[in-house]
């Protein structure tokens, strides 16, 4: 490691490393809480293209905490941020999305050692392709019924499983599932997943709001283990998401024949 490089040098260099075209409309503040001998606390404020560096943590949107040596390694690209976060060496408190985006706000830190530095070309793109899906007759029937607040399952004539959403055939028995049965709308929660990781919704390309709760629900009238996959009201206290609790759908006022016709399921409180 470069013995002459200090944490403070790096913090102050943010000013000269700003990618002005990226931060010209950005307003946010990043806190740095660096422990160790060279450590300290700083706030880097970005205000529509301007970078202001202040001592101390002045109510930043996000605080990045790590020790001094890790911070220098991280700045020089020698410490992978995902590894550091996994191992608990880098902590992010507050708006993690800002921390993630901040990588683009500043150019890479370069040590000036007189050598000609190698430039590696990296192109960033977004692939965006419009798509059209045909629902088909079976899924179309199911989706059209959602508009009428009805959840329809189709039954395998051989094994009796209730498929919901329906499929043209039972993939296990390999026969056409032709009988329609109205199920639910209430049911019991089998298991829920609380999603903290913000991934892009590929239907829109937009980053999903987190945390949200996805869940598997055994609708009344369905056969275990053919559960129904949907969301639970994101405001539900997580400790209430117990196996077997009763849930009911909250319907959207405007229904278009889509998964969003059901806003989410909510717990049926006794």
């Amino acid at each position, binding site marked *: 490691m470069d013995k002459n490089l200090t944490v403070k040098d790096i913090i102050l260099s943010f000013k000269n490393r700003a990618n002005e075209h990226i931060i010209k409309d950005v307003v946010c503040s990043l806190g740095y809480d660096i422990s160790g001998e060279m450590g300290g606390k700083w706030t880097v404020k970005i205000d529509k293209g301007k970078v202001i560096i202040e001592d101390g943590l002045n109510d930043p949107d996000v605080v990045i905490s790590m020790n001094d040596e890790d911070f220098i390694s991280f700045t020089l690209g020698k410490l*992978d941020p*995902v*590894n550091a*976060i*996994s*191992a*608990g060496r880098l902590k*992010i408190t507050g708006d993690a999305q800002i921390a993630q985006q901040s990588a683009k706000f500043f150019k890479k830190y370069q040590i000036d050692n007189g050598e000609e530095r190698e430039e*590696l070309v*990296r192109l960033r*793109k977004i*692939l965006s392709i419009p*798509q059209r*899906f045909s*629902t088909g007759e079976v*899924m179309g029937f199911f*989706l059209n019924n959602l508009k009428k607040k009805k959840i329809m399952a189709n039954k395998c004539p051989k094994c009796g499983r209730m*498929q*919901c*959403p329906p*499929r043209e055939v039972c*993939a*296990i028995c390999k026969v056409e599932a032709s009988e329609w049965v109205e199920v639910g709308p209430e049911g*019991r929660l*089998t*298991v*829920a*997943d*609380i*999603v*903290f*990781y913000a*991934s*892009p*919704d*590929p*239907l829109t390309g937009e980053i999903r709001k987190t945390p949200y709760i*996805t869940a*598997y629900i*055994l609708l009344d009238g369905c056969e*275990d*283990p*053919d*559960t*129904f*996959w*949907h*969301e639970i009201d994101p405001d539900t206290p997580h400790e209430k998401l117990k*196996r*077997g609790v009763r849930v009911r759908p909250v319907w959207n006022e405007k229904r278009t024949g*889509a*998964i*969003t016709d059901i806003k989410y399921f909510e717990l049926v409180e006794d």
Partner: protein
Amino acid sequence: MRDRKREVAIVGVGQTKYSSHREDVNQPEMISEAIFEALEQTSLTMDDIDCIVHGNMELFEMIYQPDLWHTIGTGASGKECLRLTTGGTTGATLVCAADALVASGMHDIVMAIGFEKLQEGHTTGGITNMADPLWGRKLQSGALVGITATQMIEEFGEERAKKASIDYRIIMDMHAMKNPKAHRRLGLNFDMAEDLMNNSPQLVGELRMIHMCSQSDGACVVILASEDKAKEICDRPAWILDHVTVHREEHMGTLFGFKKEKLTHRHAAEVLFKRNNINDPVNEFDVFEMYDPSSWWGVDWLREFLLFDGDEHLKLVENREILIDGKFPVNPSGGVIASNPIGATAMVRFAEAALQIMGKAGEHQVKKEVNKALASGFGGTFWTVLGILTADKPER
């Protein structure tokens, strides 16, 4: 195993170093690094290779027909080249396909190539596209599933379940520290368990960042040869005894009911073990290279693959028997949690199992002699490829 015209063995393996960034090479250049290593190990030249099978994940690098523009790095120019992609199982499927091409007599020497540059794409976004666009796409969060953690906590209690999954994670890191090609080598030890299992950021439920596999760039190459050629090329080739592929429907709902659907892993193990008279897998296999996308799944799937019903899988972890020098070494390479170039990952399982049999695993070579190895691939909506490699040429 079903009829085959002749026996087939893995005679050579090549791998790049796995890493989060390979900005210094483009895709064909990265692949060629693994190929040069495999050719050097086998003293073969590209002229000796009859056919190439190539694969990775669809939609991950947003490159259409990668096999075509990779020709400059794969050596496929003027040769037969096939492309396969079956999701996470791709790498294992490539090995199975190469096996079939040689076993059938169509080709004598086949090179299978799996690669991925996850840094170039959006893995979670890409995986989410496997879900039904009218339903699951709205709900799916890539390959991140916390349900196994929830189920294990319900079954075995929070403390025991969390401890087992973090111990498994630490063991994998201890193995990765012995594998210079592994991507994530964090230097974890058992004293850190408490801190990691409570403080690592949560992704989905109790699935935390520390539990989850890496996103890696890298390529793996495996060379398979017919029985006559195999003996010429390699002193101790890794023979392919058998493999099985089990797929299930796209719909995930049946996996998460009140009663648990039998996983494809268990089904695959039952079929494979019965066909090959394996009655006591823990004692009969000398090493298991398992596709373990998270340490929760790693622990849970030991139960499925080894056909346990109680808590034997937890005990294997708790008693540290899955350590490299333990009774049943699991993933001496560090596994998928350490390195995960997805299109190559399932192939790496077979490649690492083969290296253990060949005795060429280097610092992460299992101490005892490895005569029989198990390797698994995982992908799609719970698909399985499971295979057995042996040091002795199979007698049928």
